[in-house]
């Protein structure tokens, strides 16, 4: 194997994965071309560890691989029936907690929740749907907020605060009542300074934050995850470590 011998290595599902000190298991795995299913992890943001879809098993214990620092010699299990069953259940819980009506969603085909579910072979939510009542916010002239689809990944919160410097979004409530809110006295998006060019506009993995007047301009069937499954595409998004130099070769 073409592995840089100077870099430490951990083992993921029986395969050596080289890493740089400070990388998490998720970062090193993606950079080395190994997919671990995930939702709230985004390569441009500090790992958050909230969705738990990236859970792996190390020495019998489970950890969120996006926040777990890689250690030399670590034996990590990810692609096992047991962990994929747990991931399916987590994804199914996200589907029943919100109102995810894919046939009517502009994000369908570009949605990470849907794509992860396809990839894990989720054929049904299997649990009882909660059908929460979450009114939409259409107050802003350019942006629609569809709270029914929020999975509480906090990517919009992180993007708006850390990159846009605006803190347009926040979470409120605890447990099952936890929900996304807009940081304005009126609670309306129209009363914030969000703009279409904001990072917060592009990071939503599901169909909560949508630019208006876009809709189905790209038809269903020609969308991002129609081309190939997310397990293939997540690797394309991952920041690459420089190609390791094999010793003894020019």
């Amino acid at each position, binding site marked *: 194997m073409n592995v840089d011998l100077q870099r430490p290595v951990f083992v993921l599902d029986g395969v050596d994965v080289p890493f740089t000190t400070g990388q998490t298991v998720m970062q090193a795995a993606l950079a080395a071309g190994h997919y671990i299913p995930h939702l709230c992890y985004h390569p441009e943001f500090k790992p958050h560890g909230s969705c738990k879809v990236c859970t792996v098993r190390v020495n019998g214990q489970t950890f969120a691989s996006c926040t777990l620092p890689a250690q030399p010699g670590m034996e990590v299990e990810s692609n096992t029936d047991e962990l994929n069953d747990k991931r399916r259940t987590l994804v199914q819980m996200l589907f029943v907690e919100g109102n*995810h009506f*894919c046939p009517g*969603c502009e994000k369908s085909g570009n949605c990470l929740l849907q794509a992860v579910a*396809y990839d894990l072979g989720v*054929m049904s939510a299997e649990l*009882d749907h909660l059908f929460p009542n979450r009114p939409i916010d259409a107050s802003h002239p350019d942006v629609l907020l569809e709270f029914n689809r929020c999975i509480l990944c906090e990517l919009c919160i992180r993007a708006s605060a850390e990159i846009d410097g605006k803190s347009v979004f926040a979470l409120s409530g605890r447990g099952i009542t936890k929900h996304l809110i807009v940081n304005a006295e009126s609670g309306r998006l129209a009363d914030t300074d969000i703009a279409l060019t904001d990072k917060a506009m592009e990071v939503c993995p599901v169909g909560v934050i949508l630019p208006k007047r876009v809709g189905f301009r790209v038809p269903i069937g020609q969308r991002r995850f129609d081309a190939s499954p997310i397990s293939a595409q997540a690797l394309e998004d991952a920041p690459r470590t420089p190609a390791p130099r094999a010793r003894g070769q020019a």
Partner: protein
Amino acid sequence: MSDAPKRKLRVATTSLAGCFGCHMSVLDIDERLFDLLEHVEFDRSPITDIKHCGPCDVGLVEGGICNAENIHVLREFRKHCKVLVAVGACAVTGGLPAQRNHIDLGACLQEVYVTEPSVRNGCIPNDPELPLLFDKVHALHEVVHIDYFLPGCPPPADAIWKFLTDLLAGRTPHLGHGLIHYD
């Protein structure tokens, strides 16, 4: 092939709170229907107009549960079908009809049949023959055990074909990338 003709699988289909779009998608398997008919025969189905389901190998149910009659039909299918399949978004999740679930049923009927601007002299239907509406629309698995789910609005014809041919061949149906669609 052995000389003895194999017994044809008996299949029943119905649409509950659905739009018959999934049945249209079954027809969309086109000329492969002739191949299918070599292996299956239909029991209760809009194709045969048989009104009640007898003993069947496979039941394909489109649509969710929105009224008391839906429950009776679904239970009849569960009782008589060895393998019961939820076909399409409405059967799997409640789908479009379930979008009324956060609205009070009385207010919903009032809007549709009385106050909606295009309605003249409207009234809420109350004929005793009409099945009782439920306040919420439910997915099939919330009422009876479902053996397989075929998502999609509708499931693509190729997904239906793959599912049925896997089942006919005695394999666990498996839809890969491109055939699993929720939209």
